[in-house]
């Protein structure tokens, strides 16, 4: 059966304690296999095999047995090289893809502010849409995935607000300008299209757009990759600032040790679709246990 890399004990969040100890996301044994799949897929991939392509059925084991808890207000890092399954994991959580097996439990609030729990792997299309539109925010490495380049910066933010049911033009305008302030996009760019923005500004606009409906979970997929160091630093500062002010829970996916070191209280290290090591970020970076993590840390030094 599926190997569980479940965390043995709940790890306290590194960030200040949230109102509740219940996790906003509880993932258990998430597995995604592309292809027909066979009984030997899991044993023939990952670990010491050094591959994620099953030699028996040619299926790709993108993610296998991933379990973790994400607490309110926490930033969880997911680190790994390309092909490690970290982007697939984000796609599963953002309901862009469905797992082959495993569960992911979301705890949040409904429109009235009452507690609401949804099993993400079993929700219907309408629920998935509601969650993506009103409870989740996603920031992509490629701004063309996260922004509509046909409409203005304000229109990009407006789209999220309109999707979430906002009906007042003034309220949308106010919120758009305030979000631009917060993400350090100059107000006088509100009526410009993002095609004319710098790469860093496009990412900050993506963050503004993702935050528009006040999501309870923010997913950030390699958001600083490919940007200049100074631009990267500004965005990382911005993310920390947002986390401090809004207490939104975040999952930060990256291949960059520096990013998790700065942002994430806890980190999962992934390889060949498996979590090979997880725990408090500082601990992992200071005292890596898994040979792969050791190699990553030493090569970064």
């Amino acid at each position: 059966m599926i190997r569980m890399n479940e965390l043995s004990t709940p790890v306290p969040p590194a960030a200040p304690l949230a109102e509740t100890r219940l996790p906003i996301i509880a993932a258990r044994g998430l597995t995604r296999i592309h292809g027909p799949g066979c009984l030997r897929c899991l044993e023939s991939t990952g670990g010491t095999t050094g591959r994620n392509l099953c030699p028996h059925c040619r299926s790709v084991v993108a993610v296998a047995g991933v379990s973790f808890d994400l607490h309110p207000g926490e930033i969880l890092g997911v680190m790994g090289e390309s092909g490690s399954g970290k982007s697939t994991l984000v796609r599963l959580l953002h309901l862009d893809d469905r797992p082959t097996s495993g569960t992911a439990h979301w705890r949040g609030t409904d429109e009235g502010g009452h507690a609401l729990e949804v099993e993400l792997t079993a929700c219907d299309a309408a629920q998935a849409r509601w969650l993506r539109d009103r409870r989740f925010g996603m920031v992509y490495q490629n701004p063309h995935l996260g922004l509509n380049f046909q409409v203005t910066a304000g229109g990009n933010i407006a789209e999220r607000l309109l999707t979430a049911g906002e009906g007042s033009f003034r309220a949308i305008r106010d919120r758009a300008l305030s979000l631009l302030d917060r993400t350090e996009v100059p107000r006088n760019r509100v009526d410009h299209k993002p095609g004319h923005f710098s790469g860093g500004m496009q990412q900050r606009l993506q963050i503004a757009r993702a935050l528009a409906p006040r999501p309870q979970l923010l997913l950030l997929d390699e958001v600083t990759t490919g940007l200049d160091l100074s631009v990267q630093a500004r965005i990382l500062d911005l993310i920390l600032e947002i986390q401090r002010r809004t207490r939104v829970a975040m999952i930060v996916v990256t291949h960059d040790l520096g990013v998790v070191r700065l942002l994430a209280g806890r980190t999962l290290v992934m390889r060949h679709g498996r979590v090979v090591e997880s725990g408090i970020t500082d601990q992992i970076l200071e005292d890596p246990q898994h040979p792969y993590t050791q190699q990553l840390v030493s090569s970064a030094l």
Partner: protein
Amino acid sequence: MGYVAIRGGESAIAAAARLLDVLRAQAGGDPIGVETIRHQLGRLVDRVCGEGGCWHPQLAALAIKQASGDTLEAAFLLRAWRSTRPRLSATAPHRGTDLRVVRRISSAFKEIPGGQILGPGSDYLQRLFSYELLDEDPDKFRAIAKDFFGEEWPGRGTDSASDTVPKVLDALRAQGLLAQPRPPLPAVDITREPITFPCPRPAALAAMTRGESGGLLAMAYTTMRGYGYLHPTVAELRYGFLPIMLPHPVSGELVEAGEVPVTECEIVTLHGKDDPEDAPPSLGLGYGCCFGHQETKAIAMAMCDRSLQNGAQHGVRHPAEDGEFVLMHIDGIESMGFCSHYKLPHYVTFQSDLDNLRKSRGKLDHPGAAEAVFTDPEQIPDGDEL
């Protein structure tokens, strides 16, 4: 009042029709005979029958005459007539192997079972004028067929010289290079059921065989020029007569009710990718078939068919792989009608446009007035919340 351009009413319509008729007749001469159109403008008749979705060469010839040779108008006449006809029966699927062939070529193999039959075709003719046709001698004209068929003419034409031949595809299938034919999907009568997307292949083929020849060719040409590089080979192109088999009303047995000239084309492409991922690579098939002798249309249709299948299997990467893009834009009757409708008066909507434009310009001329719509940026609280 001088503005009543559209308020012409009945008398204006009658006058327009009369003038159209005058245009046709004003130069004098003899009226052109429908039978002459049918036989001497055969490709035109074929095209109108194809786009009209109905094999009725006599009415097609009448349509061509009535429309002064406008193919879209002529096909439209035929379609409008067709839609008043009841659907009496549906035939069982016909087999291309039953086609009695007048011409068949394969660019895939030099030698094919049954042989290459060049038949009638202009492919290897130099496009130079035959000036003798300017003033053709009727006796010489009649001698053309008589010389060819001898004493058996009239009463015998090219159709009687034809016979069935095996298909090139069958040879490829026998070698396992092409997938075996799948059981046929039920035919879709697109005149009775609306097309919805994703569109089943029978509906796509039906839409294409009725498609406007130029429109279909343009779509196919995109696949040849790099918008989805197909690398096609014409496995077989054939023109001939297909016996139409109808169930006998009493016994239910299939009986030959007549024949229809059709052009049929099968193209194959390298790595069809029709098969499961673990199967060995094989050829992909594209199929085209249309009324009469219309080789370009049949080839174009086969290429579009292949392209649409690629899009359905692997996702749309090029315009001609998108079913909606291709099938919704190749119908001559619909596109011609909609294009023409812009000649209708639109002054209610245009008045609305002008009103809007004037209002908008007025507001933009006076920036102060626009603040009614907009929030004053200065008044936004520099709030702490996000």
